């Protein structure tokens, strides 16, 4: 029995089974109403039992849009090797077992081997090309990491992280481009790209990145989790004590055992280092450009547009913004006239406490893909680095509020008392981050002088909060007050 005969049958099986299987996967971010699945590439990359095949499928929807997914599969017999996670099984009938090849060490190994050795493999409609490489191809243990949503990350032999992209985009990879640029610039707080796997489709000008290998960072905790640990301690102290005025509250924040301010300062430091490294990047797509008056005006117009669009929705909580419109507009308009506004550089683009990982060696910045919902060209735009800064500062606010929401209902009599502590916590950590960041970047041309930097930062924080309000309205209405409170206070 030849493989080719098998493949035709498997193709047919896959195209019908994946329609219901795909929406059940954590990494699947698309519409659940799939109208069809079409196999665009299906070719074995390893013989044996089971056979492992590269597989790219186009998923079509009612509105005629199509998205391509990367679903490497293992094909064997029901009596043979079986993944431990039953959810990984795509098809199990007619003497045929098909499952997600990444779900088991043995069926994930062929993919790792291609990446590790830097091989090129001819498939049916294109080819796999691995770059970098020189890694050890034999890995006893390949296991999934349960952290990411939009990709599947595998820990290989405890030494490497293989990030397998699920959504296939035929465009330069922002993540790869950024992590290379930062590594080239000597920035140490990033996991460098050790190897990568591209898929070149015949006749397609751009390759699509299918996988990226990085060193695995041991003993890591996301900044978000650490921040919540700190807040948990603070709120517990606050529940036991009822200190008086504002000065006393701040004292509690700084002296609470779980103080995060030194970590926030360290984050400010590495963020500054990251931006200074990116300010020295070279090449047409990476080199910094001065921020022109025209660009400032364009940004101000964008933010105003976002604000007006939000208010135009007219939904209940957002109506509170109406009386503050003029004050918010003034803050945004101040952007237009900032003198020596600094450099527009490639930035992280989706920077918050969930994108930084604390390890024994300090902080590491993760995921340079930018905001995943935006198109690639938008994500590769150059911006003021203060956009990243604004994202992180908003994240401190969010952490303080989320930790409180998880702790008690707003109707709780202790709420106001604890919320005041939360604001002190956010304010102390924002200050620690900001002052370290400014200290490290001062005199670098990267950002404007003190007053101008603050104007830019505030405008970007407002823009971020507007985006957050819109997002929460659609997804978590009970969290709308978090960004809304910021917008109301921003004009005070």
């Amino acid at each position: 029995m030849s493989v080719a005969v098998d493949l035709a049958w498997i193709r047919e099986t896959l195209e019908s089974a994946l329609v219901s299987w795909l929406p059940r996967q954590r990494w699947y971010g698309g519409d659940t109403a799939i109208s069809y699945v079409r196999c665009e590439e299906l070719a074995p990359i390893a013989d044996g039992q089971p056979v492992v095949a590269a597989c790219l499928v186009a998923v079509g929807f009612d509105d005629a849009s199509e998205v391509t997914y990367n679903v490497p599969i293992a094909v064997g017999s029901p009596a043979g090797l079986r993944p431990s996670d039953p959810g990984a099984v795509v098809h199990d009938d007619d003497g045929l077992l098909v499952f997600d090849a990444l779900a088991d060490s043995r069926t994930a190994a062929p993919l790792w081997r291609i990446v590790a050795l830097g091989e090129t493999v001819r498939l049916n409609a294109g080819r796999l090309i691995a770059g970098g490489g020189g890694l050890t191809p034999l890995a006893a243990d390949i296991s999934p990491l349960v952290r990411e949503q939009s990709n599947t990350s595998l820990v290989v032999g405890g030494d490497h992280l293989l990030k397998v992209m699920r959504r296939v985009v035929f465009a330069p990879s922002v993540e790869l481009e950024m992590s290379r640029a930062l590594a080239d610039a000597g920035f140490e707080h990033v996991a460098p790209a050790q190897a990568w796997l591209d898929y070149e489709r015949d006749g397609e000008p751009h390759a699509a990145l299918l996988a990226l290998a990085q060193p695995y960072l041991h003993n890591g905790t996301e900044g978000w989790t650490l921040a919540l640990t700190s807040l948990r301690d603070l709120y517990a102290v606050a529940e036991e004590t009822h200190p008086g005025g504002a000065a006393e509250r701040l004292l509690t924040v700084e002296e609470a055992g779980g103080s995060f301010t030194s970590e926030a300062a360290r984050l400010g430091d590495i963020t500054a280092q990251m931006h200074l490294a990116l300010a020295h990047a070279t090449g047409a797509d990476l080199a910094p450009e001065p921020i022109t008056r025209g660009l400032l005006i364009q940004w101000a117009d964008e933010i105003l547009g976002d604000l007006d669009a939000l208010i135009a929705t007219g939904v209940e909580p957002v109506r509170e913004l109406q009386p503050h419109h003029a004050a918010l507009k003034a803050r945004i308009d101040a952007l237009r006239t900032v003198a020596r506004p600094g450099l527009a550089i490639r930035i992280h683009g989706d920077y918050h406490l969930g994108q930084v990982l604390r390890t024994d060696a300090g902080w590491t910045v993760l995921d340079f893909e930018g905001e995943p919902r935006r198109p690639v060209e938008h994500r590769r735009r150059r911006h003021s680095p203060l956009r990243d800064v604004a994202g992180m500062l908003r994240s401190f606010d969010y952490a303080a509020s989320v930790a409180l929401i998880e702790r008690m209902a707003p109707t709780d009599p202790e709420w106001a008392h604890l919320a005041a502590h939360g604001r002190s916590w956010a304010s102390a950590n924002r200050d620690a981050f900001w002052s370290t960041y400014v200290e490290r970047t001062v005199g670098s041309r990267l950002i404007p002088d003190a007053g101008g930097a603050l104007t830019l930062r505030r405008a970007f924080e407002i823009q971020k909060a507007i985006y957050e309000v819109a997002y929460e309205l659609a997804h978590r209405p009970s969290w709308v007050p978090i960004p809304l409170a910021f917008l109301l206070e921003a004009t005070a």
Partner: protein
Amino acid sequence: MTTTGRNRRAAAEIMAATTAVPTPVTAHPVPASDPLWFKRAVYYELLVRAFADSNGDGVGDFRGLIDHLDYLEWMGVDCIWLLPFNNSPLRDGGYDISDYYDVLPDYGSVDDVREFVAKAHERGMRVIMDLVINHTSDQHAWFQQARSSRDNPYRDWYMWSDTKQRFEQARIIFVDSETSNWTWDDQAGQYYFHRFFSHQPDLNYDNPRVREEIFNIVRFWFEVGMDGFRLDAVPYLFAREGTNCENLPETHQFLADLRAMVDREYTDKVLLAEANQWPEDVVDYFGTEERPECHMCFNFPLMPRMFMALRREQRYPITEILERTPHIPSTAQWGIFLRNHDELTLEMVTDDERDYMWGEYASDPRMKLNLGIRRRLAPLLNNGRRQMELFCGLLLSLPGSPILYYGDEVGMGDNIYLGDRDGVRTPMQWNGDRNGGFSRSDFAQLYLPPLMDPVYGFAAVNVEAQMRNESSLLHWMRRFVAVRKRFAVFGEGAFEALDAANPSVFAFLRSLDGHVVLCVNNLSRFAQPVELDLRKFEGCTPVEMLGHVHFPRIGELSYLLTLAPHSFLWFTIEESNE
């Protein structure tokens, strides 16, 4: 006698021995040869002065110590570390020696020491002593000779200069009391060099007669029966212009020569270096396999980090420093401790961490001293029983040999109103009687007043009361010391930190020759869950080590444990029978 047999010995019997003639013990004397004993031993640090007074003069002595050997054996102590007991004017707790070949008369005689060591050996315990080799007291006959004239044969046993402008890069260690490393001596007509107090002139190690004399002192105390030395302030032995006069190659050469002499002339001895440096510098004091120096070094930075981790409720302060701790030869060992006779050392933390630690653990400025905090374990942890247990659990399970400080096993407190570091050197609290059972002298005659406050005083905290109470801290400590000693993996095994998404949980493996122990610690005062990746032990069963409780078998998925506030669990990982 078996372990069970010793367990059966009534507490009252042991207590009786603390004041009466010691019961003759023929148990398990120190074995003939066991060169790696120091890697498995549990150490107990004590001051002769503070432990027990046999003759009612208000000062502890060797006979008092002999009377209490049964207690130390009952605790499970393997090795007693004696703080300096040589003759001394006692201007720095005995770290200012005026005669290396004699004992401070208050403590007894060389013969008393000989008897004490022999009786410790009979009980299977070893003894090491502090040896202060960087400097002497200014009252030492050598210094008196040296200062008398420029051509005195002892003149070049010390370091003299006509100006203070030498070795200017050498930092001043006791910043609270000293302004220079040079002090003028009228009689000598020159300045003399000292790294510590001005009454402690540094010996001149460039003089071969000084080096040979140190060898002779070491030989003398080995002949008395000592099993080793804790070498005080080793980084500072030699001084060289243009350097910070620390960790110099000449100093390492001397230590290697000393070790070679010890290995050549004796067996089963140990040299423990006090080098308060970052781990990457400290490892040099182990030397190499070919040219070893000290058997053991203290891991100083670990201890303040443990306190910081507890207050921050996260493991990173600890895991960071363990990550920075280099591998050491298989025949070497770290000495680890929670507290000791010096203040909580903050030299090995960064400036902002030091401010933080001061803010956290020293709300009263009197508690700050030099670069540390002078508190005992119990007050540092607000007398929290769970926290004390967690810390002792870490001490007994992290890589290194644990060193207990006298009194911490019952949760003694401190007296911050006493001068210098005396606050943590108050009399051992044996019972609720006069002077806490330490001495029959008049109260006013005691070398330091015992603690008498309602929380930590001897009426509330003492050995006798805790011996009678099976759920006391003392009994708890004894049980865990026993567990540690049953498993060689703690002393000799490899260490591997485990990933855990919950930063409040610190989990690690210790392993030796296929034996694996899993330790999971909750650094938070709240209950915490943790999921551990134990798939490499799939099919095995974690068995809790104290109660031998079998936990659920390890499967393909991550292993879930829940931990009570400030609790910890120790497991052996065992093959399942099912």
